[in-house]
């Protein structure tokens, strides 16, 4: 099953360990990572992507990809804000997703339609509080227990959203650009 995930950590360093672990699981064939990145919400509510100095050519694409993914994970409330935040990228050292998206993913998705509640219960809405860091990724997994065990061991809280017809109907098949790092990268601290 193809899944969008966010694994939230209160420690920045644990998120970096988790990113490495995610790609190790891929290397071992336990799951498949299509793309991943680390995002952090600072004390001002801004969300930034931990990138590398060498990402000049793909900074915008990754910012848009992460913005879309955060919107997906945050639920319908986050959709517009995710896109708007992603469009307002900063060209600073770290890739910015913008305060607007940061605000949206801090919200509970109260606007979910009643007929989506059942799905919502299984796919808890992603929230990223001030000072927290998350690994966001698109993965394929055959057993959820593998990721659960690995990330729980590191102290992470996992949020999942299935990449299926329902999600695509709600968000549009091309809402998320699919652009994250397609391999492990040594993310900068910021």
């Amino acid at each position: 099953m193809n899944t969008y995930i966010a694994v939230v950590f209160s420690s920045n360093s644990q998120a970096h360990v988790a990113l490495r672990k995610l790609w190790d699981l891929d290397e071992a064939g336990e799951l498949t990572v299509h793309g991943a990145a680390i995002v952090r919400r600072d004390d001002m509510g801004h969300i930034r992507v931990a990138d590398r100095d060498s990402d000049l050519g793909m900074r915008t694409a990754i910012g848009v990809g992460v913005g879309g993914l955060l919107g997906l994970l945050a639920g319908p409330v986050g959709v517009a804000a995710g896109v708007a935040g992603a469009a307002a990228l900063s060209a600073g050292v770290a890739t910015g997703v913008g305060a607007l998206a940061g605000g949206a993913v801090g919200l509970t998705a109260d606007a979910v339609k009643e007929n989506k509640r059942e799905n919502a219960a299984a796919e808890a809405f992603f929230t990223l509080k001030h000072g927290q860091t998350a690994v966001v990724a698109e993965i394929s997994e055959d057993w959820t227990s593998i990721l659960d065990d690995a990330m729980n061991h590191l102290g992470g809280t996992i949020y999942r959203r299935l990449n299926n017809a329902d999600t695509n109907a709600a968000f549009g098949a091309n809402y998320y650009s699919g652009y994250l790092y397609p391999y492990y990268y040594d993310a900068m601290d910021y």
Partner: protein
Amino acid sequence: MTKPQSVLEMTRHDAQDLHKKIAADMADAGHATWAKVKALQADAHALATKMKAAASDQADAGKASFKAAIAKLEASAKLVEDKATDAKDAVTADIHRANAALLDSSHRAALSLSAAVAEARTKLAKAIAPKKAARVMA
């Protein structure tokens, strides 16, 4: 490496490595040369050839995804070839444009390949799962 890699997994590694190399070349814009771009183009061409060979083993959706990725790889490689004829006149903007096209196509290739790898792993998981369950029952 913790387990033997399939051809598909190795081809995916090639796509990921190509993406890394292009990103590094773009970051080193001050020292980027047309010769480096030509070398990346050769890698892109080799990747397209490997993907063509692997495409026949894919299901319909996978085949379509591979076809689109291969077309993108070939288009980006062609862009470099066309420019190479007047390489002496190539300016930084041309090099950046060629690299951006190669980066985009290698990303598309990496995604198509990771989807194919995931599908192959799922097939394997389904084949193993009943045996695992049987072992637990026993």
